[in-house]
């Protein structure tokens, strides 16, 4: 196995771990704010690691650019969505969870 393939394997497995953590957080966390925290990790880091792993295997520069563009789009989307949802939830009077 080549070095790049090994790196891809590592990055993809790490990404899968983040997706799993995001889903577990979505299922287990107590309120909308903590769930936002969980899913933005999967969005940003999980997809970022998967994209980084696939970048090493991309066949052309154009394919690499497209992968990076997809990741940047998702970053932008998840950041703005987290902000907008949290602000609306706060305005609607949903109290942040306290132990």
């Amino acid at each position, binding site marked *: 196995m080549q070095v790049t393939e090994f790196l891809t394997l590592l990055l993809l497995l790490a990404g899968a771990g983040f*997706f799993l953590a995001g*889903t577990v957080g979505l299922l287990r966390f107590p309120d909308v704010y903590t769930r936002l925290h969980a899913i933005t990790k999967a969005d940003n880091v999980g997809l970022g690691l*998967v994209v980084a792993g696939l970048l090493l295997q991309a066949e052309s520069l154009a394919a690499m650019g497209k992968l990076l563009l997809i990741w940047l789009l998702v970053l932008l989307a998840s950041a703005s*969505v987290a902000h907008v949802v949290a602000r*609306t939830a706060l305005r609607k009077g949903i109290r942040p969870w306290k132990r």
Partner: protein
Amino acid sequence: MDILYSGMALFLLLTLVAGLWRVLRGPTPADRMLAAQLFGTTAVASLLLLAQAAGRPYLRDVALVFALLAAVTAVAFVRRAWTVWEDDDAGD
């Protein structure tokens, strides 16, 4: 390597199925929308993996469309379906 890509795409689909439980339970519409948001990202990741596994580069364009729509759907949801109407006069 192809088996790794396909296996990971399958794993991501399984986490997606687990996430459906949150869509069922709620309790607020925002929780359901957050689950849908996570599904969007998971779909993007598994499409990218499938594009690599099957050697079908056009699946990356599908992933690009998913990434674009994810932003639009969630913002449209908050602005149209879940907004606080009585606060509209106060401005943003």
